[in-house]
């Protein structure tokens, strides 16, 4: 952004300021069950500003559920989450449908929408809006939520489309694009809200192999520009190269975490060793 004052910038208004020295996201004893199936069994971790955290682990281990709990696409069964120092999930006060007993449904929804607009999410299956052009996909949320001017939204969108290498696709519809292009547009769409953290849910798993690289390189560029990122992925090379910290998640618990060199070269946990051994064979 240019050097505008924070107040006049619609992208930055009404955002809580993170207390200095406090992590951007704090998760404490997070549990999530689907019926009798316990998927998360007490996750505690923090995500610092500017950090790239890569979550790895076997399928069904709770990686995606963990990510989806962060922006409350799934409502945690119990536990606490702070985002920017603000408590967005407080233990034990959630009803079955996620309603905080201390707040009216309407007030809670308003808060929720604000948190989510600050957390960009990229999905495995892109989830672009097929009835909108690429440009409309990218400008829709800033226009609808931040109430920026059409010109500002357009300028921002074109800047982002250039950043992901697709400025000439603004007028195209999603189904005219390849998977890799769709995922890059999805990243641009999330970035248009100027989120403080980007969540990636297996962003390359649905792609043909030759398209994985173009998406990863966009993500690397984001990381290089100090975007805070939480990435669930099976791309071990990406994890090794880009991550500041690796979380190994299995059976609903974080079994091991640390710097990539440590995790990949000298994993302490037997399950981590086992998993990495299997992945390397592939």
């Amino acid at each position, binding site marked *: 952004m240019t050097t505008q004052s924070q107040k006049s910038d619609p992208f930055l208004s009404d955002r809580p300021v993170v207390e200095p020295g406090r992590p951007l996201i704090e998760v404490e004893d997070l549990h999530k069950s689907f019926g009798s199936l316990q998927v998360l069994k007490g996750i505690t971790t923090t995500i610092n500003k500017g950090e790239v955290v890569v979550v790895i682990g076997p399928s069904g281990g709770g990686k995606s559920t963990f990510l989806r709990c962060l922006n409350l696409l799934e409502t945690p069964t119990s536990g606490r989450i702070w985002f920017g120092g603000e408590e967005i999930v407080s233990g034990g006060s959630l009803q079955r449908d996620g309603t905080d007993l201390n707040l009216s449904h309407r007030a809670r929804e308003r808060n929720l*929408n604000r948190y989510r607009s600050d957390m960009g999410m990229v*999905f495995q299956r892109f989830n*672009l809006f097929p009835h909108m052009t690429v440009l409309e996909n990218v400008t829709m949320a800033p226009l*609808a*939520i931040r109430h920026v001017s059409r010109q500002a939204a357009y300028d921002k969108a074109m800047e982002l489309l250039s950043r992901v290498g697709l400025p000439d696709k603004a007028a195209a519809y999603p*189904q005219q694009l390849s998977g890799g292009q769709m995922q890059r547009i*999805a990243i641009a769409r999330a970035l248009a809200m100027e989120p403080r953290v980007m969540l990636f849910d297996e962003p390359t798993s649905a792609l043909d192999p030759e398209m994985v690289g173009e998406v990863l390189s966009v993500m690397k560029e984001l990381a290089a520009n100090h975007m805070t990122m939480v990435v669930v992925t099976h791309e071990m090379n990406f994890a090794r190269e880009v991550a500041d910290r690796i979380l190994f998640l299995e059976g609903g618990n974080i079994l091991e975490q640390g710097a990539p060199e440590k995790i990949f070269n000298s994993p302490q946990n037997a399950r981590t060793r086992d998993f990495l051994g299997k992945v390397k064979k592939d």
Partner: protein
Amino acid sequence: MSLARFSAWWNDQSENFYLCFVKNDRWRYITDGLGRTLEVALAAVLLGALLGFILAIIRSTHDKHGRLKFLNALARLYITVIRGTPMTVQLLIAYFIVFSELNDKVLVAILAFGVNSGAYVAEIIRAGIVSIDAGQMEAARSLGLSYTQGMARVVLPQAVRNVLPALGNEFIVLLKDTSIASFIGLDDLARGGSIIRSQTYQAYIPFLAVAAIYLVLVMLFSKLLTRLERHLQRTGA
């Protein structure tokens, strides 16, 4: 058929045609009736669409989130009753019981047909909403849109597009159904034919003419709908 017999038959038909449509300005029964039919059908379509959207959103919001329990029960009752009873009976109940104070037959017909159509439109739209991948709403919510915004901007436009043929069919049924409005004495297109028959004792010409007009209306509408579908296909999925 000999030429003489043909010309006698032709003369008869011309005379009948004159009797049915020209004499005493009887064509006015047809044109006035057509106007009333279109008025009732168009207004009822709008009312039905409005009711249908509201009911569909209530139903699908409830099924997905368990909220709006009372409204959902009401919506289900409404849909069950409307779909479970004949349109003619509903019209008679509307005219003689529910709106018995109302003397405006056109208005009663609009309300009866609109309320009826709403139940069918609701189920069509609901099917459309269910057909949209859950990831679409998730993507909208992840950007910070509210549930309502996600519905209005992302889910409903796609849902309506998917069920456009079924909606078109419902509108065609509604247009033809308005012909039973003669049960409450509304002078619509079908009744226009009926009045001419009772005055002239000619059945063929007035009823065939009425049928032809309905047919042309439906064909015109189908054509418009096909065009709209093609247009939507060109602009996106």
